[in-house]
């Protein structure tokens, strides 16, 4: 610290910092000068496009951008083109709030976002004060829709999936079930707890609940305890990498019953690598909003359009992004038909009402809202047959 700071250095430094600040202010001025003209409607799209959870944000963005592109190609809404204001929030709540404020100043009439739980809640809290319409593709956290009537989601929640799989287990005639789940995960624990609660209500016996820690790869200890109680089915509501290992290891230990899963199972076949063999998965079930094997016409049209656009098959998140965009723009269309100024308070209310009362035919099913921000929509139960996935059943709303 003996090195003193002489004047010449200070002058040099001030010169450099002045140039730096000047450049920064010019840049920020450039960034802020995007005002929407009268023949476009500006819609915000936010999510994590870099950082730890970028894969979800990017998948949702591809789906949402595809829908907007298709809509614009069809002439937009009432002859107005949709302009997307896409901003990265890096999976961080602070950045998400900044992005939200920036979008509001940019004149967006509604926002598709956010993607992951904590930033979504942060945005939902701020947005409730403005009554800004928010449609999230993937925020499953229960709190997301609890701050105001303006927040909606396109996905089903964790508790809903747990309940659905419990009912499904009962309908398949299973009497005794067991569960194995990541006890440190928000999602896994949420599904598991709802499943167990519902089983108790409908009289299914839950023989054992086995927890494991994030990062575990050997589940034989838990599986041995599960096999000892001879369950008819085992719920494994985790992400597909772990589910695959659990199924494989259980088969090695001689378990022949069914496995039940939640939408974390999507990608278990046809994903980045094979986590469980076709024979091992035979006769397992999971619930999901979207699979490319779904033969419904809408889904096949979407899959084809997506492949043409990006050269890859869409995932569950892409489909939810597509539907989230559809829900929001459906609401905007209703509001436009009433002839209100979209950027006014009345306009926002009209969009929120439009979403709440409307119904759209998305690729993940018909989405309606029944007085809350949680969707009422059908869910698919998927099974495996000869190494490929097949829609086993469609459970109504």
């Amino acid at each position, binding site marked *: *610290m003996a090195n003193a700071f002489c004047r010449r250095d200070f002058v040099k430094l001030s010169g450099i910092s002045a140039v730096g600040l000047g450049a920064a202010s010019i*840049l920020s001025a450039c*960034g802020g000068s995007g005002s929407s003209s009268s023949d476009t409607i500006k819609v915000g799209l936010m999510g994590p496009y870099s950082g730890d959870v970028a894969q979800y944000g990017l998948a949702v963005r591809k789906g949402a951008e595809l829908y907007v592109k298709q809509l614009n190609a069809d002439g937009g809404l009432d002859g107005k083109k949709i302009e997307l204001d896409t901003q990265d929030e890096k999976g961080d709540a602070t950045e998400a709030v900044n992005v939200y404020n920036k979008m509001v100043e940019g004149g967006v009439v509604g926002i598709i976002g956010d993607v992951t739980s904590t930033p979504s809640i942060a945005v939902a809290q701020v947005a409730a004060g403005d009554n800004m319409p928010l449609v999230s593709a993937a925020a499953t956290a229960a709190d997301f829709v609890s701050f105001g009537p303006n927040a909606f989601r396109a996905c089903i929640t964790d508790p809903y999936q747990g309940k659905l799989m419990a009912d499904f287990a009962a309908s398949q005639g299973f009497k005794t079930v067991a569960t194995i789940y990541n006890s440190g995960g928000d999602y896994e624990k949420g599904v598991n707890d709802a499943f167990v609660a519902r089983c108790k209500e409908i009289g299914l016996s839950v023989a054992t609940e086995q927890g494991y820690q994030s990062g575990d790869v050997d589940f034989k200890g838990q599986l041995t305890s599960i096999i000892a109680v001879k369950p008819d089915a085992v719920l494994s509501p985790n992400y597909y990498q772990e589910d695959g290992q659990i199924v494989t290891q259980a088969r090695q230990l001689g378990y022949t019953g069914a496995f039940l899963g939640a939408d974390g199972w999507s990608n278990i076949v046809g994903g980045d690598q094979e986590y469980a063999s076709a024979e091992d998965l035979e006769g397992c079930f999971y619930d999901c909003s979207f699979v490319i094997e779904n033969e419904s016409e809408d889904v096949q049209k979407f899959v084809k359009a997506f492949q043409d656009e990006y050269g890859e098959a869409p995932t569950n998140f892409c489909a939810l992004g597509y539907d989230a965009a559809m829900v929001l723009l459906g609401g905007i269309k209703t509001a436009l038909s009433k002839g209100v100024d979209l950027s006014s308070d009345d306009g926002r209310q009209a969009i929120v009402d439009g979403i709440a009362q409307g119904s759209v035919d998305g690729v993940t099913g018909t989405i309606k809202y029944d007085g809350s921000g949680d969707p009422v929509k059908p869910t698919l139960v998927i099974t495996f047959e000869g190494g490929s996935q097949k829609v086993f059943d469609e459970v109504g709303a």
Partner: protein
Amino acid sequence: MEESNLSEAVESSAASTSGSSRKKLSMPVRYLINAVLVAVFIVVGELMIGSGTITRYQTTVLEQVGIYILMAVSLNIATGYLGQLPLGHAGFMSVGGYSCALFIMHMQGTLGLTVRDFVTGSPAAVVLFCAGLLFGGVMAAICGLIIGIPALRLKGDYLAIITLGFAEIIRVVMLNIDGVLGFELTGGARGLTGIPSYTNFLNTFLVVVISLFLIHTMMKSRHGRAILAIRDNEIAAEASGVHTTYYKTLAFVVSAFFAGIAGGLYAGCIGVMAPAKFGFMKSIEILVMVVLGGMGSMLGSVLSATVLTILPEALRAFADYRMVVYAVVLIIVMVFRPQGLLGTYDFSLTGTLERVINGELPWRKPKKEVDEND
């Protein structure tokens, strides 16, 4: 609040020995000048926000600037003034944030205050805000005390690792305390939601100004000089009668206290607290601000916290290259100015004024002695 720390004391004693004719500003005048400038800054800021010249987005970023200034300056106490290297500052921020948010959320219901009251600033809300921040600060200070006593027996790398470990413990406690206690407190991995937005431009900067003033006066007092003596040479300080353990712990606790207050402001600014946000990287981010600005320089911490908070927002258009630019800036600074941008230099407005009054202008050659502490 940009006043000098040490250099001024050195300088004034040097001045008094060298020349008797040097005019000096009296203390009340100095305080008045600074107080007026702070008041002007806040009033102009408020007016610009009121009239919409500063937009809501910019206001939120400004609030974050204030919060990070407080974080950087408080870490600077432990790093720059005490000369230790703690890596767990984010842990104190989260303790302060959670405590303050929980305190305000629970008391809000008891006192029957609504979110509106925080915006309009009703007396009860103001009192609750202050009490909440103090509570957050005190909780963080208690954690600082618990961590500091064992940690400060170690030095350098060992201290860095132990504080890093303690910050991780805090994070994991926040994550799992609900399950262990069996009732809803921090919300675990889901995070604490529904925190009223009690932070605004005015109260953020008032808190920042008051905190900087307190830190500055502490560092200029006998206690501050003892802390600086420990940094420069611990053995010599101890030999001269400085109670090193006491002063090391004191500096560490004060550092934690102000980090807790910054955490409280942060909770109100964002409205959500999640343990994952207070990991190792957050501590590093704050340490980078301090090191970049210059360890031991309050102005350096203030400037680098401001620039490093605004820069990512200003560079939003080039989001993909932002982290590269950030890293390159750090490498360049560390190669060419290892002591940080400002080193230990601190700016004193009144000191500069005095020099101007006395005609000691930068372009004039100093008469006799070389004054190097510019």
